[in-house]
């Protein structure tokens, strides 16, 4: 006698009339449970059916549920609730019956859902910034400073770092930035040594007084971060209020779209800092005659009149451009090519790149990134081990699977050198199986026919042509 479990949601549930009839006709024993009162032991059931929308019950979700319940993931089936709404009630029962019969007739292969947890250690490339190191340390994540020459290889879910042989759970790419400025300055202007960056000014303001001096800021619109705008507002305000200096800020746009950033802008402006919107292409500079200052010539966007201001210091905020970092030269294996780009996808963790275990760190987001990394390193991922199998008799070692696999899950192993699927990396995409010219690879339980024939075709067609 087959013992079945039918799990229902609060949102979707069926009236119970169908159970008795179906139990009598087929000799099943069906238990109906709600998500609230799930049974403690799931292993006693032959099949577990979930009535839910296929939007929520994705492949990954079923994997992690089977891991939680300690059952074979092939035993867990989702009856798509959104389809139920469109099925005519009379034909519903026969469809449901077909669905259950088909599920029971599917052979059960020994598949195990296993949680794979990466090593609690990260490698930061190409350089570990102090801010990132600090926040990672706060959350108890070890960091490895990349040696001068190294290579990387996948080791299950981890990456192995050579020559040291350490395993790292994740790689963070915190790209290097290139500082550039939209305006060029002649060498005579640079000779005055009054062209400084904002870090210099920050240090200098603590040491000395800028009384009765004139200070100009030039801030381009692109590539200046929120933190730098904040710094500029704060610094200019201090210069005016503390030292009674005269401060001009020449900008293309004033950017205030940040937490409390607008308040700081208003504070700076009301304290007496002069903001001018200017066209940077018409901005000219030359040194003063005594070489102790710089004359800045600009036309304001407001009235287009030319003005000239003599400043004692000119503070520049550069545009920051991210330099692409190529991982390919360090990687054993040819799967990682070109730049690694951020992925905007709700199905993956934030800051993920297209490659599992590799994250990208945008500037000033270290805190958020470390939260995500911590989650990834403690929770790991659930994999179904034993789903993919290669028939060694059929495999001719053409290496098509090795080249197709996006996850580098194919290994060439054994005495006879045959392809093998590493379950810790396999994402069950089925690409290798579909491309294998010898039909040697099978991903078990991966076929659409299970419910397509049962639901959409109303159970009329015994064998369906839908197959992955």
């Amino acid at each position, binding site marked *: 006698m087959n013992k079945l479990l039918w799990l229902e949601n609060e949102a979707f549930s069926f009236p119970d009339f169908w159970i008795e009839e179906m139990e009598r006709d087929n000799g099943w024993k069906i238990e109906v449970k709600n998500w609230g009162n799930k049974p403690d032991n799931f292993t006693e059931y032959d099949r577990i059916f979930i009535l839910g929308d296929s939007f929520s019950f994705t492949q990954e979700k079923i994997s992690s549920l089977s891991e939680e319940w300690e059952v074979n993931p092939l035993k867990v089936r989702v009856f798509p609730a959104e389809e139920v709404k469109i099925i005519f009630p009379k034909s519903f029962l026969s469809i449901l019956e077909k669905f259950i019969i088909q599920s029971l007739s599917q052979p059960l292969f020994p598949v195990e859902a296993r949680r794979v947890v990466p090593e609690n250690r990260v490698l930061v490339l190409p350089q570990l910034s102090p801010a990132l190191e600090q926040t990672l340390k706060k959350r108890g994540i070890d960091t490895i400073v990349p040696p001068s020459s190294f290579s990387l290889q996948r080791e299950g879910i981890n990456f192995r770092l050579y020559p040291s042989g350490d395993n790292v759970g994740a790689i963070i790419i915190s790209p290097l930035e290139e500082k550039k400025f939209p305006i060029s300055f002649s060498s005579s202007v640079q000779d005055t040594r009054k062209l400084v960056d904002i870090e210099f000014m920050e240090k200098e303001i603590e040491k000395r007084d800028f009384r009765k001096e004139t200070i100009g800021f030039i801030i381009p619109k692109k590539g200046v971060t*929120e933190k730098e705008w904040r710094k500029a507002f704060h610094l200019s305000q201090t210069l005016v209020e503390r030292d009674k200096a005269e401060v001009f800020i020449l900008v293309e*746009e004033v950017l*205030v*779209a940040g*937490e*409390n950033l607008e308040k700081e802008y208003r504070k700076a402006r009301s304290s007496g800092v002069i903001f001018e919107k200017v066209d940077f292409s018409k901005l000219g500079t030359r040194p003063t005659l005594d070489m102790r200052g710089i004359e800045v010539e600009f036309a304001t966007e407001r009235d287009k009149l030319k003005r000239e201001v003599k400043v004692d210091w000119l503070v520049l905020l550069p545009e920051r451009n991210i330099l692409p970092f190529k991982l390919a030269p360090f990687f054993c294996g040819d799967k990682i090519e070109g730049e690694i780009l951020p992925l905007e996808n709700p199905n993956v963790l934030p800051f993920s790149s297209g490659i599992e275990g590799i994250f990208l760190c945008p500037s000033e987001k270290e805190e958020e990134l470390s939260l995500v990394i911590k989650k990834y390193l403690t929770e790991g991922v659930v994999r179904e081990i034993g789903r993919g199998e290669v028939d060694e008799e059929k495999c001719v070692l053409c290496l098509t699977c090795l080249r197709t696999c996006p996850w580098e899950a194919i290994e060439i192993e054994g005495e006879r050198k045959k392809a093998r699927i590493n379950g810790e990396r396999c994402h069950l995409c089925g690409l290798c199986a579909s491309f294998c010219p010898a039909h040697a690879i099978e991903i078990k339980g991966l076929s659409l026919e299970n419910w397509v024939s049962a639901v959409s075709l109303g159970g009329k067609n015994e064998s369906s042509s839908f197959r992955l």
Partner: protein
Amino acid sequence: MNYDLVIMGGGVAGLTLAQTLQDKLEVLVVEESSPGGMASKLGCKATDECLSCGVCRFINIERELCFKKFDIWEGRKITSVDKSDRGFHLKTEKGEKVTSQLLAVATGASPLEIKNLSRWGGGLPRVYSGWDIERGLNEGIISSFRDCSSLAFIQCAGSRNFKEKRGYCSQVCCRYALRIAENLKFSFPQMNIDFYYMDLQILGKKKEKLWKIADKINLIRHLPYEVKEEGGKLSLVFEEQGVERKSYDALVLSVGMVPSSGTKEIGKWLGLNFDSTGFIKSYGLGHTSCEGVFVCGTACGPKDIETTQEEAQKVGEEIWRVRRG
């Protein structure tokens, strides 16, 4: 009923906060209508490539609701909140009572109604608010602009206006307007799009892409004086060299966010400090002027979806730290 934490508002902030703390605390989310808040009504703004609007981030929150370990009360309005030594006591419209140790306010913001913006033609036909378009994206509102040959965006409609006590930048309008403009340009390349603005507020992730979009359209740094309907077209008056007039087939007012009615009400009940803009004042990591009450999301100032989510996670950590002692 007793809970460790009651979250008022089931939008992106409230649900993320609940999901962060569900394993550690007994959490209840009280929502006036149905969970999702403002983000659930928005549409994806991708053209042939993703423009990183972040609306899809809500999908994951929604999916995880199936497996939630916290309670949600849907369609229940809170009628009163009291504070005593034992914690906070809440009453709902249906007469239910809840006691909780901590409170989190995630009641969010709401878009400004364009009826109030009659100066810029709010209420006239073919004058849309940015939110109307955002909401209509899923229903294919973009294709209804087929017969438009010229269109104008008016930025900061209602925001950055001290006279009307909204002297703040809503932070999202420039970015969503540029994405909508890119969508329009993608579908109808012949369309002439003018963009009236004060400053292009493009900070944060993917700013490079948005700057590229901004280069494709005509940027005009002026706030139009008034909008009138003349001969089936919308005539717009602004000042450049002198007074100029331009007429358009359609107009989009990029309205910003204002504190929602729930935010105002609950802030008043709890005696929370408001900042000058009408949002609840946050003293860092979600702390408010009242002990035991936290605030997150757009209830304490305009934010985009991504920042809201990140902030809610941080506030969640802080609440756990406070609770643990």
